[in-house]
C-alpha cells in the first residue's frame, strides 16, 4: 500500500514555499514499507563522524604522536618523572597555561607563529575508502594524494581522505579513541543538528535537489538515548548553513554533484563550522526502515580546519586547542604544518599551495520533517 507520495500542498514559488507548506510530503512509512523514489524525504543526522579506519600495524612505523604532557615527561630525566606521574595536578601546573589570555602566546590559537614540532603521519601506500568522481566508493591501495596543479579541476578527481593520513598516528583518533567516542555526543547533546532533504525534480530521470542544512533545534532523544525519527525540525535562521545541490537518485542511491558545504559544527561550548569545498554526498536509503546512511567527501578548507580543529575556539573567545591536543595526543603546530604538507585540494593560483585537504565523513540519518524557521 502506498500512502502519500510527493504531496505538493502549498507548493508555489520553489523550495522556500515548499518548506513553508504545512503538508510537507509524507515520506517513507514508519515501518519503511513501500518507499518510493518520487517521495520528498527529510532526514536528521543521527551519526556524523570522520572516517578514521584505524592505523594498521605498518602504518605508523615510528609509533604514535605525543601530546604536550607526554612530550614534557619524555623530556625529563627518568628520575624526575615520578612526581608528575603520581600527581596529575602537578603535571597540569607544569604545562600551564592551558588557556591563554593572549592568543599570540597560544600555540593552538596561532600555530603558524610557532615552529613545527613535527607530526608523525601515515605516508606509505594505504588502502582506504575514497569517493570516485561518479560518487562510487573505492578502496584500492594508493600513495598519498599530491597537491595538483592550480589548473586541475577538482570535479574530475577522486576525493581521498588525506586527513586520515594526518591523524592516523594519533592515539585519540583510533577507532577506540576519544574522537570516535565523542563523535555523536555533539548530536545527542543538542549542539549540532544537521538536516537533509531530498526533493524530486523529475520523476522519470531521478533528478533531485538536495538540501543539507543546519538546524539550531536539538534532536529529540528517545528513552534509549538515541535521536528519534519523525521530528519536525526547522532550518537554521542563517542561510549560509543552507546548502543546496542537485543530485541523482537511482534505486535508492543518491549521489550529488560537487558543492561547497558549510554547516554549524558546534560541540558543547564550542561554536564553529565545517566548511568543505567541492564536496559530494552519497546516500543510500534503506527501503525496509526508511533510514539513510552514506558518506560525505570533500576538501576541508584549511582556514576552517585550523579554526575548528586546531584552535578550537569556544564561545568565550578562548582557544581549547591545547587541552584537546593533549587529550588526543598531538601538538597544535605539529598538526598545523602536517595538514599543510598533506593538503591536496584547491591550490592557490598564486602560490600553487593547496588550501584544503580531502576528508571523508560517514553519516547515518533517520526520517524527519524539515520545516521552515518560524
Amino acid at each position: 500500500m502506498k500512502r502519500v507520495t510527493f504531496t505538493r500542498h502549498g507548493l508555489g514559488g520553489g523550495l522556500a514555499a515548499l518548506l513553508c507548506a504545512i503538508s510537507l510530503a509524507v515520506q517513507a512509512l514508519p515501518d519503511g514499507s513501500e518507499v518510493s523514489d518520487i517521495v520528498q524525504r527529510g532526514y536528521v543526522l543521527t551519526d556524523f563522524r570522520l572516517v578514521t579506519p584505524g592505523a594498521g600495524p605498518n602504518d605508523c612505523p615510528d609509533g604514535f604522536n605525543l601530546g604536550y604532557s607526554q612530550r614534557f615527561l619524555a623530556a625529563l630525566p627518568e628520575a624526575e618523572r615520578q612526581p608528575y606521574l603520581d600527581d596529575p595536578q602537578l603535571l597540569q601546573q607544569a604545562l600551564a597555561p592551558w588557556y591563554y589570555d593572549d592568543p599570540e602566546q597560544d600555540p593552538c590559537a596561532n600555530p603558524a607563529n610557532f615552529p613545527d614540532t613535527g607530526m608523525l603521519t601515515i605516508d606509505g601506500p594505504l588502502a582506504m575508502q575514497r569517493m570516485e568522481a561518479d560518487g562510487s566508493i573505492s578502496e584500492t591501495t594508493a600513495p598519498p594524494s599530491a597537491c595538483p596543479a592550480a589548473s586541475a579541476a577538482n570535479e574530475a578527481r577522486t576525493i581521498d581522505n588525506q586527513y586520515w593520513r594526518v591523524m592516523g598516528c594519533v592515539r585519540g583518533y583510533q577507532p577506540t579513541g576519544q574522537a570516535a567516542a565523542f563523535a555523536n555526543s555533539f548530536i545527542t547533546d543538542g549542539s549540532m543538528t544537521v538536516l537533509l532533504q531530498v526533493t524530486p525534480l523529475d520523476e522519470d530521470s531521478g533528478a533531485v535537489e538536495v538540501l543539507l542544512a543546519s538546524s539550531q533545534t536539538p534532536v529529540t532523544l528517545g528513552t534509549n538515548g538515541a535521536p528519534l525519527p519523525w521530528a519536525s525540525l526547522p532550518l537554521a535562521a542563517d542561510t549560509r548553513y543552507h546548502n543546496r545541490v542537485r543530485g541523482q537518485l537511482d534505486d535508492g542511491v543518491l549521489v550529488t554533484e560537487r558543492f561547497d558545504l558549510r554547516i554549524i559544527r558546534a560541540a558543547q561550548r564550542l561554536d564553529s563550522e565545517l566548511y568543505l569545498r567541492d564536496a559530494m554526498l552519497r546516500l543510500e536509503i534503506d527501503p525496509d526502515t526508511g533510514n539513510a546512511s552514506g558518506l560525505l567527501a570533500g576538501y576541508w578548507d584549511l582556514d576552517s580546519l585550523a579554526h575548528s580543529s586546531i584552535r578550537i575556539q569556544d564561545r568565550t573567545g578562548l582557544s581549547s586547542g591545547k587541552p584537546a591536543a593533549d587529550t588526543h595526543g598531538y601538538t597544535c603546530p605539529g598538526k598545523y604544518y602536517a595538514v599543510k604538507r598533506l593538503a591536496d585540494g584547491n591550490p592557490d593560483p598564486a602560490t600553487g599551495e593547496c588550501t584544503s585537504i580531502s576528508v571523508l565523513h560517514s553519516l547515518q540519518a533517520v526520517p524527519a520533517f524539515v520545516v521552515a524557521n518560524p
Partner: protein
Amino acid sequence: MVMCRVKAAMAGLLCAAAVLAQGAPVSPSVEASHVVAMKRLTQGQYRNSIADVFGGDIEIVGRFAPDYRHERLLAAGSALASLAPADYEQYDLMAREIARQVLSGEQGEKNLGCEPRLTATGTANDCIGHFIAHYGLKLFRRPLTATEQSQREAVVSEVVSLGGSVNDGLQLALASLLVSPDFLFRIETAQPASNGQWQLDSYSRAARLSYFLWNTTPDATLLQAAHEDELMQPAGLRRQVERLLASPRLEQGMRALFTDMLAFDRFGELSKDVALYPAFTPAVADALQEQTLRTLTQHLLDAGGDYRDLFVLDWMPMNRTLGLVYAVPVPWASGWQTYQFDSEDERQGLLSQVSLLSLHAHAGSSSPTLRGRFIRETFLCQPIPPPPADVDFTLDEAFAVLPTARERLQRHRKESTCAACHHLMDPIGLTLEHYDGIGMLRLRENGSPINTAGELDSVAFEGARGLGAALQNHRLVPACFADTVYRYAASGTEIPHARDLQAALNEAFAAGGYQLPALLRAIANSQSFYAAAPATEEDQS
C-alpha cells in the same frame, strides 16, 4: 516544653473536632433530613476545591488516598471509598500545611481582613467567628451548624490557653475543617418533598451540580442560590444550570469527566518497553492525554459537535512532541494547533489517537483484546467478564511463534473457554492492528502484512476508519454515553428510577443533536437527578 504540650493538645483537638464534625447533625434546620450518600473527593476535586477556596497558589503537599474505580468510573467509586487511618494521616498533614499557608504572612492578614483576638473572657472575637464561618461555608458546602462553629472557636481559645498564639489556634481550627469528613466527603442529605418522594436538599444539590459540571466546590453564587432554596424550584434550578453551562469553567469539569471515562488515571502506572518503543517518552505520555482532552473539548464544547462524530474526526490537535509519534510534520514551533489528516489517511477518529492505543496495549506489544474490551465497555457499556481463574496462559507462549496477532488470537479462540469472551473483543481490536503498542503506524508485524479486517455486532469493516464509522452508526453508542455521563454526575452506585430516566435522557440527547450541552442540561435539570431513597427507620433513629 510548652510547644510540645501545645502540639499534643492540637493533635487531640484536631481529632476531636473531626469526630465531632462527623457526628454533628448536618442540617439541623431540616429535622426530617437524612444522609443518603458520602462521596469522597477525588484528588482532582480536592485540588480544585482548595484552589477555589483559598487561591491557586496554595501548595498541596502530601499523598492522596487512591481513588477507587467502580463500574468503570472513579466517580461511582467515590461513593464507596473510605479513608484508612494511614490515609487520614496524610490528609491531616495536608490540612495543617494548607492552614499554615492560608494564615501566614501578608497572605494571612489579607485572608483574615481583621484582627483576630480573644475577648477578656477568653472567647473568640467577631473576626475569629467570621473567619471560621466564612471558610466553613466554603469547605463544608453548607453553613456550619452552631455546634460546629462553637467547636472551632473553642479550639482557638484552647490553643491560646495552652500557650499558643491566636494564629496557631486559627490554623488548627481551619485544619480541623479541612480534615473533617464534611469536607473530605460530599455528604448528601435528602428531605421529603411535597409529593411524598425524597429528594436532595438545597446545599446537596448545589454541591452535586458544581462537582458534576465544574468538578469543584460550589461558588458563592451557587451557595447563595442554595441558601435561598432557588435550586429546589425548576426555574431557579434552570437559571443556575445555564449559568454553570455558560461558564468557561465547564471545560475543567468536562475534562474531569472524560479523564474518568477514559481511565486516564492509569497513565500514572503505564510503562512501555524502552527498547521497543523509544518514542514513548514522558513528554509524549503527557502530551497524548492532553491531545485527547483537547479533541473532546474542542469538538463537544467549542464546536458543539455531534458526539457520534468523534469516531470519524479527520483532525487532531497536534504539537511537536506528538508529531514524531504520528509521523507528521508540525511546522509550528510551540503549542497546539489543529492538524488535518489527509482524506485517505488511516488516522481517523478518537480511536486512532495514541492515548487510547497506548493505554490499551501491553508494555511490549499491541493488544487487540485489550483494545476490543475497552471499546465494548467504554463506548457500548457492555462489560466483559475477567478471564476464568483456570485459564491456560501457556497456550499464549505456544502461539508466540505465529507472526501476527490475528493468527495468534485465532488459535487462542479455538480454546472453547477463551472463545466466548474473545469473540466479543478481538474482531474489534484487530481492526486497530496497524498501530503498535504505543499507537505508531505499522503495516507489518514480524515481517508479515497485517490484516485489519474485523466486525462489530455483525457489521464488517476494515481498519480504524471502518471501526470509527461502525461506532458512529451504532445505536448503543449515544445511549452508553448518556448513561456514563449520568452515572458520573450522580456519582452513585444505585440510580433511582434509572430506566425511565435513561429513556428520557436518550430522547433529550437525540433531540439536542447528540450535543454534549444538551445532555448535561437534561441531566442537571432532571428532578430524577436529585431524587433520593426514602429514609429508613434506622436513618430516622
